[in-house]
């Protein structure tokens, strides 16, 4: 009886009920995602403790330091690598999504195979790349067995290996949104274009591509942003010869013992993430309004 009574009262108060549903999860995310980021932000304007940690005080020197050409260079390199990763993912991902969308009964299997590597441990993925690319690795051994090579190719510890590793981890994020928008594409439009005499390439360029751009935009964001924080791949596949922002952050919390600077660098990454997500949200909402408009 009391249970019914409670429920009846809850039913009468939708705001409270929504709060009870929303509350625990939202609270968890606030406590263990938002608050930690706030602490990070606070640390980034405090003074460096001599042995790590922070000391009270307010300073913007750590943000000013990010503007130093040395660190700007690392930032630029990170952004360029992330852009290159995004571009390669697009060039590989779009045709793949197209094939999946038109593969009929194989569709589910193909989708599953694209998603699978994402769910696999990042460490296992990276180790698999090392296993493949080493001088005495699988690829070199296979090419030599086939008589293609005499001397091993140096594949591991190159920029190419870093890019391959980054693309490997990020590709599903590009394929899925593009696939989703291809799915929604109304075939009638393509038939109409064909009826009007448009050739396949023209149909793709004038109809398919423009209508799936939202998917491309979402995919690009989902690839670009996590890549900005990569640090295991550049170390293990790049031979630690170059830094990305992630390595810089890791260093500041490690040997350099400069937590505030590390926090400032983290926040730089985070503000890029935030800007990108907000941009995407605005675009998406405008798109939704436009679709629902008439």
């Amino acid at each position: 009886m009391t249970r019914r009574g409670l429920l009846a009262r809850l039913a009468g108060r939708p705001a409270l009920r929504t709060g009870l549903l929303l509350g625990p999860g939202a609270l968890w995310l606030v406590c263990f995602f938002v608050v930690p980021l706030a602490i990070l932000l606070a640390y980034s304007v405090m003074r460096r403790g001599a042995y790590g940690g922070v000391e009270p005080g307010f300073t913007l020197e750590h943000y000013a330091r990010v503007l130093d050409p040395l660190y700007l260079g690392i930032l630029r390199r990170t952004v360029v690598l992330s852009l290159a990763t995004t571009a390669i993912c697009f060039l590989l991902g779009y045709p793949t999504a197209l094939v999946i969308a038109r593969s009929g009964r194989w569709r589910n299997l193909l989708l599953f195979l694209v998603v699978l590597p994402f769910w696999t441990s990042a460490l296992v993925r990276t180790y698999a790349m090392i296993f493949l690319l080493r001088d005495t690795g699988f690829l070199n051994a296979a090419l030599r067995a086939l008589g293609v090579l005499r001397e091993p190719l140096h594949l591991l510890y190159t920029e190419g290996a870093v890019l391959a590793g980054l693309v490997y981890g990020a590709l599903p994020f590009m394929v899925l949104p593009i696939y989703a928008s291809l799915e929604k594409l109304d075939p009638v439009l393509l038939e109409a274009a064909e009826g009007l005499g448009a050739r396949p390439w023209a149909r793709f360029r004038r109809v398919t591509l423009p209508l799936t751009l939202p998917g491309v935009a979402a995919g690009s964001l989902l690839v670009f942003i996590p890549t900005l924080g990569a640090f295991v791949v550049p170390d293990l596949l790049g031979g630690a010869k170059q830094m990305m922002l992630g390595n810089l952050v890791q260093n500041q919390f490690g040997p350099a013992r400069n937590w505030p600077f590390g926090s400032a660098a983290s926040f730089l990454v985070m503000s890029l993430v935030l800007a990108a997500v907000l941009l995407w949200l605005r675009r998406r909402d405008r798109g939704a309004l436009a679709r629902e408009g008439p």
Partner: protein
Amino acid sequence: MPERRAGALSRRDFVAQAGSAALAAAGAGTLLAACGAPRPRAPGLEAELHIYNWSDYIGPDTIGQFEEETGVTVTYDTYESNEELVGKLLAGGAAYDLCVPTSYVLPLLAAKGVLAPLDRARLPNFRNVAPLFLDPAVDPGNRFGVPYQWGVTGIAYLRSQVTEPASWGVFLDGTVSGRKTMMDDGREVLGAMLRHRGHSLNSTDAAELAQARADAVTAKGQLAAFVSAPVKGQLVAGDVCLAQLWNGDTRQAQAENPDIGFVVPREGSLIWADYVVMLAGCRHPHAAHAFLDFILRPDVGAGISDATGYGTANAAAAERLRNPVPYPTAEELARLEYQVDLGPATALWDRLWTEVKAA
């Protein structure tokens, strides 16, 4: 300085066998290794001990034997670098009893108040410690640390591929370009370059450091990678034929491939010693002291060093090693240098190392 290793830390084989059978069926509720029959516990000791050590830096049976003898259950975790250790300790909240920092970290940890002084009366085996490790500058009177193991940085090389590299200069002169590596550690790389030019590897002199940075950039152009202990596998497989590496790790690789040699360059190099310390938050001080005295026993110390390939600070144990690691002679010591904490110069070193990476 990542991983100084032993073989697998096999605790108790019967547990493992049982575990492997249960591997597929292992449910959610099983938290830690199933304990066998409860052992009688030595009087006055706590039931547990939490140890945080370098990965593979202990004998395969050391922990198991200690548990058998004392009835204390040991929780054993590992780390890969001093930075990881210091990070965890300074963040607080890592409730360990014992850990194993390298000498140069001791003053920092002592200053931060995270160490607890040892009770020497409970460590009768402390008399086994070699004179070289008594009363070090980083820990006057051995107040906090029990000397554990020591090692040197040198060059591991494949005898069949390159002639013995006598000097750090091999990283600068184009020898086997693309098939050599240096450690992924600014202190090690810049330190070696400083020694190469006849300077201290703890230098804070701007001009000396600038030269070291320039040399390191030259070296980087010829390196396959900056990689520390993981290079062992590549040395054994022959991907890499010249590597800056520690003596103990080289020994482990030698066990797999006898073609590997090791040399300390004539310009001198780094020597380090690790100390087992008790943390201020230690909740099992009696068991901790029992463990410290246990590893100071000659047989136990020898077992550890035989497994890791590093020298033991335990003089009585050193005599029993199957594969001896002789203490450095006075003449060798003159060429070897301990690291010190760089203090305010840490920022400069970090910047130079970042510049090397960005070059």
